């Protein structure tokens, strides 16, 4: 399932090189449903945590968002996608996960990052921030610096600089 979604995201990338790839929900979230004890309900399950670990490691730049890069379902997610586009993040180094497709991911990522809102951006497995932080890092040049250091920008093309 994961591979199928990968294949389709590559097709989409090929068709729309500027657009970022999006991937289907994490396969681990399709684990057989077993009755949860109150203890398990309160804590991020190991399965979810492992699935999020994998998601974060799936690309150098990983965004948890509402909707897909092509059709964001929330203004904050859209703003972050636009910023990543302006910066020139390479689609090959980018993965997006739609939390609206997966209630467990939607709740789990908040606890995992200790961050109450979505979108959330990870670069090199490190939590960078949400929309507010990314907007200010975009404006003050920190984001460009980070992306250049991590070598995640489209080669031969400097990210458009914002005054």
């Amino acid at each position, binding site marked *: 399932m994961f591979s199928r979604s990968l294949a389709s995201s590559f097709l989409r990338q090929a068709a729309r090189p500027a657009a970022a790839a999006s991937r289907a929900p994490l396969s681990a979230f399709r684990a057989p449903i077993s009755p949860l004890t109150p203890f398990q309900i309160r804590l991020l399950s190991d399965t979810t945590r492992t699935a999020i670990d994998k998601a974060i490691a799936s690309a150098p730049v990983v965004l948890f968002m509402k909707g897909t890069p092509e059709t964001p379902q*929330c*203004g*904050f997610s859209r703003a972050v996608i636009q910023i990543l586009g302006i910066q020139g993040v390479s689609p090959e180094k980018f993965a997006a996960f739609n939390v609206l497709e997966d209630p467990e991911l939607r709740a789990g990522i908040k606890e995992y990052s200790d961050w109450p*809102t979505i979108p959330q951006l990870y670069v090199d497995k490190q939590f960078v*921030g*949400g929309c507010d*932080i990314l907007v200010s890092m975009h404006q003050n040049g920190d984001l460009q610096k980070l992306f250049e250091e991590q070598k995640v920008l489209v080669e031969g093309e400097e990210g458009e600089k914002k005054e």
Partner: protein
Amino acid sequence: MASITEASLREAITQRLGAIHVEVTDMSGGCGQAFTSLIVSPQFEDLKSLKRHRLVNTALKDEIAAIHAWTAKCQTPQEWEKEKDTAAPSLDGTVGGHVEGTSQ
């Protein structure tokens, strides 16, 4: 929890974060689901952006969990002094000051 309003958030921020200046704007178009804020507090001194937001998120944990969208601009008194005339809550991610998809 009692319903969250601009005033209740302003009071919570002032009390819990020792803010010397707070602006809170409801950007949901009135349904009380989306707020943007400017918070000026000496507690942000020497903290990077991520740490400042984490401080706010912790102080307003229950409030933020209960609403749909939350945006904060966190400044120290010194930073605010410099751009006092122009500083205002961020409207990034909104359309004309309103946030889309509040039904999600």
